[in-house]
């Protein structure tokens, strides 16, 4: 199975590198939003609450723009039947999950410094900030991957994915925003509980999605 996961992952990265559709969409959106917010607020120091909220809104909508593509592309290009015949369902899910997690981590790595730079954010607890961003991204990817599979089978686009994702991502956003606020403020504990919660949440969602994936993906 490890071999199947690796091959599928390589294929997905190659296809994405060739077309650069999802990465362009997510990065352009996130970049545009960051610059727009920076322009609108130019010079004004925003509170930690508003800054965290803006950062996670950007991440959330970038995810909504880009993370469903990995499954929708397979259905659109008619390759999913071939993929199913060649690769086991579990390997499909795991490779897509890893792909989405890496893809979103790359988006976050690019956008976060840009955001910090344009909005002149002062990060007091860098370790907590990085941990929260990373684990929040993992949680969003874990939830979005499974939902993307559902949306691709529903033939839906854009808004259906966002409608389905938002309620399930509210705990993630709540915790991530709280953790990010903690890293912007001067506090004794810096709020390490939130990254741990996000990590646990991603693990739980990934495990449940893994068990349910075959019911969504395979045609009966």
């Amino acid at each position, binding site marked *: 199975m490890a071999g199947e996961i690796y091959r599928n992952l390589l294929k997905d990265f190659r296809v994405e590198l060739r077309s650069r559709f999802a990465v362009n969409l997510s990065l352009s959106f996130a970049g545009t939003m960051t610059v727009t917010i920076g322009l609108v607020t130019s010079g004004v120091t925003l509170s930690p609450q508003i800054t965290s909220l803006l950062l996670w809104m950007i991440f959330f909508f970038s995810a909504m723009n880009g993370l469903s593509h990995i499954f929708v592309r397979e259905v659109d290009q008619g390759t999913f039947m071939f993929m199913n015949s060649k690769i086991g369902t579990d390997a499909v899910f795991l490779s897509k999950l890893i792909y989405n997690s890496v893809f979103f981590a790359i988006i976050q790595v690019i956008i976060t410094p840009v955001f910090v730079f344009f909005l002149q954010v002062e990060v007091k607890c860098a370790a907590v900030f990085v941990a929260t961003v990373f684990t929040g991204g993992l949680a969003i990817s874990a939830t979005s991957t499974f939902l993307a599979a559902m949306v691709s089978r529903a033939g839906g686009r854009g808004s259906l994915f966002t*409608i389905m994702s938002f309620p399930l991502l509210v705990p993630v956003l709540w915790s991530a925003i709280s953790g990010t606020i903690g890293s912007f403020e001067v506090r004794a504990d810096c709020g390490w509980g939130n990254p741990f919660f996000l990590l646990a949440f991603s693990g739980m969602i990934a495990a449940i999605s893994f068990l349910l994936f075959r*019911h969504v993906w395979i045609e009966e």
Partner: protein
Amino acid sequence: MINIFRIVYILMPLTVVMAFLWAPGAEILGDTSRIIYFHVPAAWASVLSFFVAGSASIGYLFDEKNKRARLADVSHNSCVIGMVLIVLATVTGSIWAKMSWGSFWNWDPRETSIIFLLLVYSAYFSLRSALGRKERGSRISSAYLVLAMVTVPFFVFMVPRIYPSLHPAPLINPEKKLFLEDKMRITLAFSLASFTLLYFYILVLMNRISAIEARMVNKRNEK
């Protein structure tokens, strides 16, 4: 089994009489506190319907021998009832919030949790309409419900207890006590029982109608 749910024909009017005449008004809120006998059971029943839908979905998805195909309908019907109950709970809760705290909506953690549940139901119905009522559609929407069921306890049970809330102390609190007078406690218990029975009764009726529809479709297909 349906006979036991018919007890609601007696229990509900009894509850209404108790709520208006027998139970006293609360100390500060007075008669306005009687809304507790409608709001709390509606909220409880909506969460119950959600868990029933999620459990039925699990039963449907992991039914290898296809013996429980009707569970998809059970889960859908439970969601329909749950949606109505959630709207009920939200409106009565807002009215009570205005009376107690001076504004209809305060983004209190418990208020937020009910809106979150409403969003989950709405997303489920959006997905269901996009998928249609075929076998595959039922499987996918059931999978969504199972995933949603896993995240709900966090919002409905954990968050209101972690973050400070305007809401009256939840029934399950650190002191493990119900901070109500005896008469109010009994009336609330009756009210909870009535709404639970009513929910199950309506669910059973809707399931029977779904089963009839399925049988008629099968008969038509056979011809």
